[in-house]
């Protein structure tokens, strides 16, 4: 059976807003890099980016470039998207192994929705959204993908 592969929402449907705290995340994505803020005092990662470290209240952060690897913590398969009759979106909450404690809510793309599992290994990709921004999304991790990335 040829499954309809999952996709991200069309670029024109997704708008993002930034502020001085979150902008480094989006600027990195625009350069096809996945980055997360790590507290410069205690090393705690947090996402979304916020003005204070919830562990030590420091405002100092280091923006760390991550490997782009992730795993599915949980997910939902959404098929009732108005105007996208046959589309399937897999919305996923993902853990980031090199930013422990921080999660992203994103999409698993190019996957058979029936094959997506909690714990599934993913690798980042970038999907265009409105106004020239890129959205970090994830695709199933395979050695072939790894080769391409490397």
């Amino acid at each position, binding site marked *: 059976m040829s499954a309809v592969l999952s996709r991200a929402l069309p670029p024109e449907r*997704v708008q*993002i807003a930034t502020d001085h705290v979150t902008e480094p995340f989006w600027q990195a994505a625009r350069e096809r890099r996945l980055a997360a803020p790590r507290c410069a005092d205690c090393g705690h990662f947090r996402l*979304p980016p916020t003005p204070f470290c919830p562990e030590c209240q420091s405002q100092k952060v280091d923006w760390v470039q991550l490997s782009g690897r992730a795993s599915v913590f949980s997910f939902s398969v*959404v098929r009732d998207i108005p105007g996208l009759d046959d589309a399937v979106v897999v919305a996923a909450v993902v853990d980031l192994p090199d930013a422990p404690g921080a999660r992203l*809510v994103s999409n698993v793309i190019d996957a058979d929705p029936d094959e997506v599992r909690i714990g599934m290994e993913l690798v980042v990709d970038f999907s265009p959204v409105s106004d020239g921004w890129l959205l970090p999304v994830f695709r199933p991790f395979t050695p072939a993908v790894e080769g391409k990335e490397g």
Partner: protein
Amino acid sequence: MALQPPDTAIVGVGATPYYPRGESYPQTITELAGRAILAACEDAGLSVKDIDGFAYYSMAGGGYGRSMDTASLMETLGIPEITFTASLTAGGGGSAGSIGLARAAIVAGDATCVVSVMALQQLPQYRLGGVFGKAEPTPEKSFIQPAGLTGPGHLMSVLARRHMHMYGTRREAFAEVAVSTRENALTRPTALRRTPLTLDDYFNARMIAEPLCLYDFCMETDGAVAVLTTSLERARDLRQKPVPVIAAAHGGRREWGRAFSWMGMPEETFASSGHAAVAQRLYGKAGVGPDDIDVALLYDHFTPMVVMQLEDYGFCPKGEGGAFVESGAIRYKGGSIPVNTHGGHLSEGYVIGMTHVREAVEQMRGTAVNQVPDAKLALVSGGPATIPVSGLILGRDA
């Protein structure tokens, strides 16, 4: 542990009819709220001019994108003076807690007759179902909106999936919540869904956000419900049998936080309703435990959250909510803890939690349509959502 002596009581409840989404138009939010408030006053045998306090929740929201306003209600209804007006923050999580806010005002001496009210009108631009997807992007929401989880049920489906993964919870459990709640609505005149729902209906329904289907989602409806709280002493001189406020609590822990608008919760909290801390505090204040509760009115915007609240409120151990529900434990007929005897948000009507307070009052007066025999304590919860979540225990006057 003995019950703390109650100091306040609910003396009046009033409501508009419940309407399918948008059909309360062209009434305004103020008009809907006003009708519910006047009905609550009539129920209590009080004049609307006796009201001197407003205790809202959801930032006095009148649905998604609009608000109630105390001054407008005073102007419209002719309330001469108020001495307290306040709201719990965030959204539907505060519904049960708004009665606690009313109690706090009365116990502090800041007001004597306090109304808690919700009026909801879901015109196309103010729908629950689109509230997350259509909202203007903000820096915070930009970390969740793009994923396509357009409504709260979509967001909660991710929590439900994790609960299934961790504990083996089955869709059959969510189905049992939907089916048993519908059965309760069949005899209730105020309910909007009064045809039986079968397991086949459930499993043949359209999937909205897997693992959740159409019947896991509550209705999108309109309507208003108002609840009047006074001191217990004054309550005893009024028209209705007082329904004492045994305990109320709102709040929540950082690990839950913005909950499914955030998704950063540690594993055990992720697969929960976020109520554990509030439940523990509520029982502590009341001096009772889950075994003492006779009927539970649990905020049922989405069926998995009923399962998870049963765990967080201690009706079964953590992780066993699915099997507990599937055993028939929440049935009005034959269950050990009847849940949502009025048909809940799933089948009666959705007014952001206040319908559950209304049912708890009817149960404690002994006048409910699906009356639980000899019920002495009713638990009400406010929606698993962004903090605060809340709980309320109502009782019978000695």
